[in-house]
């Protein structure tokens, strides 16, 4: 890039500069709330809610310390358990299913795929009340593992579709060779499928993480205290009128961090994951 700049204005058309400026303005508008969240989290409470707003200030990590030494960590750990647990379950259930829909396909594969994806987009109104009553009767309300099981249902259809799209890319000859060698289903999965679709497993895990970490509806209705997840912690700030803005921003930053980092690191997998494998 810098080499081009030195070669002179000939390689520097005004339209490029213009569009760069316009582009950065647009990006700034969209990114600004995130930036503002970070700035607020580094202020003291009076600075965070001052009028006019404080722009220049000495950053402090005081609010992060407060949030982390307060009652936030259990919420964060619950989110981690629910997300990791449901991601693992999605992979354990989803990989064989994707195999049965891609490598040695069952009859009516299209119908099965359609069925899976239709359950993902069935409104939660469809199953909410019976699931709630069942969880209540089994003493599973406010239980983080029960919440993981629900998140597994949410993510499994996406996982099956996504994993299948990666499995379809494996050359079929590899499986034929393995079968000639008498490899069992388990060997095929562990020796061929898992190593070859590592990016697919990464994409699936990322999507599961995003949807279960950020999930709010089931969390707010199925948990109350011991199993409450990070978004529930934020509900506590809902009526803040100028109070605790810095603390709110610090908590929001911490709660958003895992998904933000994972999404940024795995940008390539993100598109493919969000479109269930359609866009590569």
């Amino acid at each position, binding site marked *: 890039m810098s080499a081009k700049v030195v070669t002179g204005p000939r390689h520097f058309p005004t339209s*490029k500069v213009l569009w*760069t400026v*316009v582009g950065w303005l647009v*990006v700034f508008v*969209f*990114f600004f*709330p*995130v930036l*503002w*969240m970070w700035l*607020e989290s580094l202020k003291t409470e009076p600075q965070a*809610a001052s009028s006019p707003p404080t722009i220049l200030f000495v950053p402090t990590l005081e609010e992060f310390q407060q949030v982390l030494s307060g009652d936030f960590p259990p919420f964060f750990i619950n989110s981690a358990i629910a997300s990791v647990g449901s991601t693992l379950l999605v992979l354990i*259930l*989803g990989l*064989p*299913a994707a*195999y*049965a829909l891609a490598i*040695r396909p*069952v009859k009516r594969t*299209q119908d099965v795929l*359609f069925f*899976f994806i*239709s*359950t993902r*987009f*069935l*409104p*939660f*109104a*469809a*199953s*909410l*009340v019976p699931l709630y009553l069942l969880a209540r009767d089994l003493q599973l309300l406010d239980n983080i593992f029960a919440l993981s099981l629900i998140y597994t*249902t949410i993510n499994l259809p996406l996982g099956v579709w996504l994993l299948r799209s990666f499995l*379809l890319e494996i050359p079929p000859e590899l499986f034929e060779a393995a079968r000639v060698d008498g490899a*069992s*289903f*388990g060997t095929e999965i562990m020796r061929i499928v898992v190593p070859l679709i590592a990016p697919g497993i990464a994409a699936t895990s990322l999507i599961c993480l995003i949807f279960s970490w*950020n999930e709010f509806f089931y969390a*707010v*209705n199925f948990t109350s205290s011991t199993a409450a997840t990070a*978004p529930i912690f*934020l*509900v506590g700030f*809902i009526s803040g009128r*100028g109070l605790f803005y810095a603390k*709110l*921003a610090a*908590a*929001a*930053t911490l709660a*958003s961090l895992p*998904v*933000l980092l994972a999404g*940024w690191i795995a940008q390539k997998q993100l*598109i493919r994951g969000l*479109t269930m494998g*359609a*866009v590569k």
Partner: protein
Amino acid sequence: MNSVASSGGVRVPTAASVARREGWLRRLPLLPAFVYVVLITQIPFLLTIYYSFFNWNLLKPGSFKFAGLDNYARLLTDESIRTAVLNTVILTFCVIAISVVLGLAVATLLNSEVFGKGLMRTLMIAPFLIMPTAGALIWKDTLLNPLFGLLPNLLSPFGLGRVDWVNRFPMATVIAVEVWRWTPFMMLIILAGLQSQNPEVLEAARVDGATALQAFRRITLPLVRPFLELGALLGSLFVVQTFDSIYMLTYGGPGEDTTNVPFLLYIVAFQGFSIGQASAIGVVAVILTTIVATFALRTLFSIFQVEARR
């Protein structure tokens, strides 16, 4: 777990039994996931239909009574459900339409010759990754709050200071926050479409004297159309279910101005504990979504098949 080939020669089975065995061997890996999904989504749905014919309030012990179609009759006369359906349609349509247009614009910018594309894209997807509850709170409290928020303070020199955006324009606020969240999603999908375009074709069009606008309308737009459709359809299936930002920003209010179907269900089931009534709402929601989603999913399916053929 032996493969079919090794067991074939031992018992001299008939062709039909081999085919059946083969069929089950193929189905076996699918079954755990299939059974799991049926258990947690389909059977509860049957129960939802069953409950919808009963009058049952969890707060009144012994109130479980057969009610026939009462719950449905109440839905027809009840204004709340009509408002909620209307709000759901308005919210979904506005969010998808605006975010597709903005997403297309931003994607076009990021696909042109600009400096720092990678970083721009990275920053641009942040709103989609931020926890929706966190994003909504940041908007409501630190940006829009009439006394302490940034926006009213910045706008006060223009005479727009101290406007209580969330309360005066509740639906517009919810739409704005959701557009902020979904534009990056659309942008990502559309950008992938733009990047699949062969730049030589555009170059050739330019040499032939086509203006940038002509080239965009005649060449680029038809090419990215499947990506626009994919983004709009997938996005609407998610936006129909919007709950987090409504809960955080307006709690469905003022009145029922921003109550959509998921939020109404939450109020009826978990604030009113009317199980029968909530179940009837659930059944209606499923019927309405099925009508929309069958169309949407079929279209999606054909898009996927076009993709697969490439």
